[in-house]
């Protein structure tokens, strides 16, 4: 046992940063798994360049993974790291501005060569020139210690040995924060099972890192973070993209329908395609299409055939799919469009997050073309959002948008796994017999005869005898669905389609959280800003102020009580990662002069910044 002291902490934010090829995402993932196994609550933020391998050692090539874990509930991945692991000078330089004074920095001194320093514009090594004085710097020759620790592995080249340095770093951090490494050992065994020597080398590097922390004097103590108090249940750690894929599969299971995905690879949505293509066992068919348009066409064709058609993409893909979404609106068929938003316009920032597709989802089509929108608020909530989207799509025969984003897609958090027996039943009734009579009194099928309550039309799938019918993108006559250019009919059908979406039932009222009951200021968010907003609001309340908060998950239609809620506060602030898109919708819909607070930096809001914004508004109201 170590003779070193163990200190107790309530929360820690660690950021692993290195070159794209240094394995920082894997290191972060493994540390996250270890932390989840310890029972801490957590939230993660991967941040990586769009280039697969930018030039080595340069600033554009820096990849990082931030993890916030605590003995209490965690709302965000954290603003500022308490510990920065910098695998090279570029990683140090790119991340130093985020590190508060007094924080710990572990640097891999082996990479601080003249050449590498010069690549990022350091004239002198910051380790030696005193510029890091206000931090706790641990200079560790990570690469060479790893190589030394693997001296016995004759079959490996020096390069291969160097590659295990991320496992050394993981071992060191695991010791520092008393994380178990058994999960990582099992993971490595599975990953490198076919290459015993590489497996053994990685395990050795991991152990060497742990032992380094335990034995060297440089690290005086390790830390413990007690498990968080969480509601009883079975938990797992899950990313937004995985949760979304699982939500779609669970919904299809509960609808007793096959799931068909038509998709074209695009960052940051591709992981949903990957996840679903591995779930064939659950009657999931995935078709990687020739382009975005074909992806949604395939999904729509499958929906016509009675499957749950899904297409997954990001903003640029939505732009291409718009015409087919309009067709689905006109055909009134279920269809799920997953938009994992990223920075735009155009190619924009493929690996960075943004919420700027809201108006595209809402209005980005020709004609009056209403589409319901559901926006998950946390990585785990992507499961529920997907489930809810399928509910709406199948019950109302409509395309539905799921607006996730890059932050939710790649971020992760513990998820209380739901009991399958408690998932709602989504079983759908296909039309099975004629629902009208023709001029001669013969039974006929009217594909656009609506359910009076939901306004949904019957879903009659090919293969059903007697219901043969034709539908298309040309305006259809009410009830019969025949082509109609009649002015009054078009007016009626346009209003019916709008009323159907506006009248979607089962959308819960927006819930306002106002512990003091005296708040005059409401902070309203949507989608992935929930965590940062909740954390900022908590900080403001802890400072003794009253502030109310609420979060929207349904953007179209809005919850029925939203207008009343907005009007009951002296001021409403709407933080969004765009230039005020929800604010615009709220003003137009409710004539309430909401105050946008916007940021499009490709990163989630900082809790501290948001808290300042809220305090400023409170001062103005006082």
């Amino acid at each position, binding site marked *: 046992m170590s003779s070193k002291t163990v200190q107790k902490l309530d929360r820690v934010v660690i950021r692993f940063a290195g070159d794209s090829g240094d394995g920082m995402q894997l290191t972060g993932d493994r540390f996250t798994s270890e932390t989840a196994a310890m029972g801490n609550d957590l939230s993660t933020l991967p941040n990586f360049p769009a280039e697969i391998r930018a030039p080595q050692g340069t600033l554009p090539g820096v990849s990082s993974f931030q993890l916030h874990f605590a003995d209490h509930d965690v709302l965000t991945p954290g603003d500022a790291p308490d510990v920065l692991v910098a695998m090279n000078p570029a990683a140090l330089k790119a991340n130093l501005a985020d590190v508060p004074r007094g924080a710990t920095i572990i640097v891999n001194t082996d990479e601080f060569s003249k050449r590498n320093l010069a690549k990022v514009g350091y004239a002198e090594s910051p380790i030696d020139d005193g510029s890091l004085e206000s931090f706790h710097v641990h200079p560790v020759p990570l690469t060479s210690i790893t190589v030394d620790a693997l001296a016995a592995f004759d079959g490996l080249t020096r390069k291969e040995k160097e590659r295990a340095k991320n496992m050394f770093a993981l071992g060191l951090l695991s010791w520092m924060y008393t994380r178990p490494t058994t999960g990582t050992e099992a993971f490595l065994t599975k990953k490198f099972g076919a290459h015993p020597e590489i497996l053994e080398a990685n395990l050795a590097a991991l152990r060497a890192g742990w032992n380094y922390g335990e034995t060297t004097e440089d690290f005086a103590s390790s830390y413990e973070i007690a498990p968080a108090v969480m509601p009883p249940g079975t938990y797992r750690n899950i990313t937004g993209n995985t949760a979304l894929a699982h939500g779609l599969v669970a919904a299809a299971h509960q609808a007793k329908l096959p799931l068909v995905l038509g998709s074209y690879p695009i960052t940051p949505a591709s992981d949903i395609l990957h996840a679903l293509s591995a779930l064939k066992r659950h009657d*999931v068919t995935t078709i990687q299409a020739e*382009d975005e348009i074909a992806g949604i066409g395939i999904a729509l*064709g*499958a929906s016509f055939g009675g499957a749950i058609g899904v297409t997954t993409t990001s903003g640029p893909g939505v732009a291409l799919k718009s015409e087919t979404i309009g067709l689905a609106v006109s055909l009134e068929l279920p269809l799920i469009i997953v938009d994992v938003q990223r920075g735009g316009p155009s190619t924009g920032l493929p690996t960075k997050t943004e919420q700027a597709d809201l108006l595209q989802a809402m209005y980005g089509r020709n004609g009056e073309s209403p589409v319901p929108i559901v926006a998950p608020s946390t990585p785990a909530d992507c499961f529920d959002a997907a489930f809810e989207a399928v509910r709406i799509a199948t019950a109302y025969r409509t395309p539905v948008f799921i607006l996730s984003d890059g932050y939710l897609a790649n971020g992760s958090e513990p998820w209380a796994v739901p009991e399958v027996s408690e998932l709602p039943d989504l079983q759908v009734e296909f039309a099975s017999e004629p629902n009208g009579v023709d001029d001669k009194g013969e039974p006929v099928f009217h594909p656009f005869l609506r359910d009076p309550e939901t306004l949904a039309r019957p879903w009659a799938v090919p293969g059903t005898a007697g219901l043969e019918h034709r539908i298309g993108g040309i305006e259809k006559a009410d009830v019969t669905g025949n082509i109609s250019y009649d002015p009054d009919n078009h007016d009626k059908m346009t209003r019916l389609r709008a009323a159907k979406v506006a009248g979607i039932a089962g959308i819960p009222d927006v819930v306002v959280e106002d512990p003091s009951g005296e708040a005059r200021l409401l902070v309203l968010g949507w989608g992935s800003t929930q965590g940062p907003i909740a954390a900022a609001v908590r900080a403001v309340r802890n400072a003794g102020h009253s502030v109310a908060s609420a979060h929207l998950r349904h953007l179209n239609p809005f919850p029925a009580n939203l207008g009343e809620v907005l009007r009951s506060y002296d001021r409403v602030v709407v933080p969004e990662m765009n230039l005020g898109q929800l604010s615009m919708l709220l003003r137009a819909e409710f004539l309430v002069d909401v105050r946008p607070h916007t940021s499009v930096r490709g990163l989630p809001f900082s809790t501290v910044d948001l808290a300042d914004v809220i305090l400023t508004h409170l001062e103005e109201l006082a």
Partner: protein
Amino acid sequence: MTTIDHPTTSNGAAARPSGLAGIPLLAPDAPAQTKKEFTSDQEVRWCPGCGDYAILAAVQSFLPELGLKRENITFVSGIGCSSRFPYYLDTYGMHSIHGRAPAIATGLATSRPDQNVWVVTGDGDALSIGGNHLIHALRRNVNMTILLFNNEIYGLTKGQYSPTSRVGQVTKSSPLGSVDQPFNPVSLALGAEATFVARTMDSDRKHLTAILRAAAEHRGTSLVEIYQNCPIFNDGAFELIKDRTQQEARIVHLLDGEPVQVGPEDDRKTLVRMPGGRQEFVAADSLPEGAEVVVHDAGAEDPSQAFALSRLNTPEMTHVPMGIFRSVSRPTYDDGVRAQVRAAVDTAGGPATDDDLAALLRGRDTWTVG
């Protein structure tokens, strides 16, 4: 979900699987279907004299021959005059958006092996705005039949040149003559790895019906180019091969296993491959030295000869091959996709139960909070 057991012949060789395998048939004692049953109650709204009428009549008359239940036939179309086709057939149908029908049909055909899927498209729909979907459907070999009505003009938008319009063609958008190089749809399809490619003509009901039959029977994507006259914007585009006095000298009927020939009986010419590869029609009794008679083999694995035949076609229509250029058996995309899903389900012991879903949701790494 159905998987198709590919039949074998008595001598053990793999027989070609049918495009209709897996699609429910009418009961043996059911009364024979009629053209009328396949005719919807919608008024047909093409221009008088449009070639589409003849194709519609041929299809409506032919469909009963398949012996399929009407509810197991779906026509999907894009946009354009020809794409109104599904409205006039009393089957399932979707009139979709411009160029996208092959993609939509791919989703339907892959998820519904019990459906006999047809795509109706035109030269603009299939080769211009929808060119990408067409080539990828052909490459994948999804089990469906694509009827490409080629009238070498945009009709519905009232007369602009299309990707098959001839160089120099004067249209509303090319008043000085088109400078666009046209596509040869058959060459394009062969280049896109198509397994079944044929050409026929609106006015030859018998030939058209025979091609439809072969196309429907083919398992995979069948591309049928149908020369179709637009009497309003491009009247007479195919007159040289419709005119009875000229057609015999110009139409090259592709007959499997037969020499490729053209011309009336008293002046018949045979296609030969000259040393070096050049093709030439020569009088049957004067084979040049070293020339090799081209015998049509639609089932040849190598598409080179089929491609060479497709190049006989020139804008002058001196020689226009009609018939099946290529018909080879290759595993279809949709069968492959379904086989993978089926294998995954079977290996796991049958359709996913609630417990299976619960196991998926839990993943491999859970912890319990008491």
